[in-house]
């Protein structure tokens, strides 16, 4: 393996390109018409334009991606996450073209991709799953009787889903119909498959997931990540380890995840997502058969470079992680910096990034996908970058994150930076008292607030800026000794108009 085509964009494309560089591999970028000058294109050894701005014309075009790989002499394709990363058909097409797919075998993607089928398999493998239907919902009457049987609240989920798309919580019977309809429509758009299923909603659970790594010899777990800070099922903050998991629970969950991966003959990096209830019971949700957005927190506490390991395993080599007991060292925290403006109801914000100042200093990592001058459009995901910190313990990591967030400047598009700052200062978050409904109870974290001192500072700044702007507009007419009287006269005449 010498040259890898990266079938993605944004921060993950850049992350994979960096890993290629460090592994001594060449990286080929692909880009849509909207991404001609994007950061991942500038970072690659070669770059190929593959179509129009909408993903359906570029990043989702299997034929064009494979053509680009063959034309540039690439011998492998890394899918990143999102787009085609979990499409078994893509993995198959890559292999049929004689190329290496940096990921699990197509059969494992297919087995885990159908969420209903995956749950059945997991139950059979002895992995605990959330009670619910194993079949897609076909009509409202059947859905109603199933929901009654499970007991409200229930969750509507897209069978082909992920990332919270096509997912709805239903508290009462009358909400079921509209929820099924809107979840199906969102699922059809996001995944091209409208089938949805129902399951019992576990109340106030944490979202805890286990990182898996498998080569041809062995399958191991690399600890957990806690991702309970979510908004509409979109993760915003992740950490490793989890304040709810001790060594014993980690081994229980870890073994369940390893069993899940082995049940589908997994290869490479993957993640088993679990709901963790307050009584420490846990339920398999799904397996993401790809690198995860939040993989860096695991990398920082376990000292493993997951993307480089993916590349090694794809090349047929064994993983570099030593056999035996793995212990997390210290604490890592990640904030997803998205172009969503909390002050505007978390709606997407677009525009040109006029300025970007990236935080630095001890223990700070920035996995970004944009630079100053880049345009943020509505075509793609709103993730601009991930700000990740490491520190010896959780509170120090939170304080370090607060410090790094203070250093960050993104000018030109609205981001959720202020929300993250308020979260880092929040007492309940600092206590580690988390569950996946945390943000639903705390809409106040989205709303900016000003202390009196800050209000005075901003008022003074605005007054000074206005004063300066006015003085630039105003013709400066002083007492006039050294001014040509002709021009002074002109100015007076202008003033009389």
């Amino acid at each position: 393996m010498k040259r890898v085509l990266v079938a993605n964009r944004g921060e993950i494309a850049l992350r994979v390109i960096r890993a290629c560089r460090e592994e001594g591999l060449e990286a080929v970028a692909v880009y849509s018409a909207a991404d001609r000058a994007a950061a991942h294109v500038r970072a690659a050894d070669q770059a190929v334009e593959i179509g129009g701005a909408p993903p359906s014309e570029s990043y989702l075009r299997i034929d064009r991606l494979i053509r680009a790989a063959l034309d540039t002499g690439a011998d492998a394709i890394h899918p990143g996450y999102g787009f085609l990363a979990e499409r078994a058909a893509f993995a198959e097409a890559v292999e049929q073209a004689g190329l290496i797919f940096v990921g699990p075998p197509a059969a494992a993607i297919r087995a885990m991709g159908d969420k209903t089928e995956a749950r059945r398999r997991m139950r059979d493998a002895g992995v605990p799953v959330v009670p619910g239907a194993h079949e897609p919902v076909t009509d409202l009457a059947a859905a109603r009787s199933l929901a009654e049987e499970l007991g409200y609240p229930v969750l509507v989920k897209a069978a082909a889903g992920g990332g919270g798309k096509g997912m709805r919580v239903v508290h009462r019977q009358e909400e079921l119909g509209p929820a099924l309809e809107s979840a199906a429509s969102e699922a059809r758009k996001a995944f091209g498959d409208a089938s949805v299923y129902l399951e019992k909603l576990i109340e106030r659970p944490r979202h805890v997931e286990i990182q898996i790594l498998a080569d041809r010899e062995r399958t191991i777990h690399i600890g957990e990540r806690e991702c309970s800070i979510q908004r509409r099922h979109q993760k915003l903050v992740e950490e490793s380890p989890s304040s709810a998991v001790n060594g014993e629970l980690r081994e229980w969950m870890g073994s369940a995840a390893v069993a899940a991966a082995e049940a589908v003959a997994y290869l490479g990096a993957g993640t088993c997502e679990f709901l963790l209830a307050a009584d420490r019971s846990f339920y398999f949700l799904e397996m993401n058969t790809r690198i995860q957005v939040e993989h860096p927190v695991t990398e920082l506490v376990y000292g493993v470079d997951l993307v480089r390991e993916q590349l090694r395993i794809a090349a047929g080599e064994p993983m570099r992680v030593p056999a035996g007991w793995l212990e997390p060292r210290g604490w890592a925290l990640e904030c997803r910096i998205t172009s969503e403006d909390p002050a505007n109801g978390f709606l997407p914000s677009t525009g040109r990034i006029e300025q970007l100042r990236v935080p630095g200093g001890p223990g700070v990592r920035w996995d970004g996908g944009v630079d100053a001058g880049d345009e943020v459009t509505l075509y793609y995901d709103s993730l601009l970058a991930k700000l990740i910190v490491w520190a010896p313990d959780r509170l120090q990591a939170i304080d370090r994150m607060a410090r790094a967030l203070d250093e960050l400047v993104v000018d030109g598009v609205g981001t959720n930076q202020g929300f993250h700052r308020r979260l880092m200062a929040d007492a309940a978050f600092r206590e580690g008292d988390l569950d996946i409904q945390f943000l639903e109870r705390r809409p106040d974290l989205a709303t900016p607030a000003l202390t009196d001192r800050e209000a005075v500072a901003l008022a003074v700044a605005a007054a000074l800026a206005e004063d300066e702007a006015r003085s630039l507009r105003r013709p400066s007419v002083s007492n006039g000794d050294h001014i040509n009287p002709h021009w002074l006269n002109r100015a007076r005449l202008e003033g009389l108009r």
Partner: protein
Amino acid sequence: MKYIVGIAGREIEVEVDGDRVTVIGSTRTASLRSIPGTTSRQLVLDGRPTGLTMRSAGRGQWSVETRGDRWEVEVLDERTRHIRGLTAGSARQRGPKTLRAPMPGLVVRVLVETGHAVTAGAGLVVLEAMKMENELKAPATGVVRAVRVEAGQAVEKGQELVEFE
């Protein structure tokens, strides 16, 4: 020059005199400088620095951003403020209210029809952007006057979607 600055529901008087400002009765040193090579400015108020980005929309309207939070600030001199006070009553018009698109996107569903009575917070239109569906809600209780868009239509930011009273 004396300014009245409106920010986050507060009104703060700021008198600017060279490198001194008088604010809430106390006089302090203040400077506002551009940071070369960036779009940022730095305010130093009594030796305390604050990094900011600022954009003017004219007529004393400023958008000020610091540490990721953006504030809409209005800076008026006393005379303009006085005139504003005299005309404010007549400027506040009664009439139809409109729901506008808060972002560019695609209308997925329209949940109301002309003549429907809606309560504040009821969903009116589902707009899709960045592959997420966003339900736009009625800002107040009222009756739908007109629906200006239909499902499948692409809309620009600020475009009228639903008019109601």
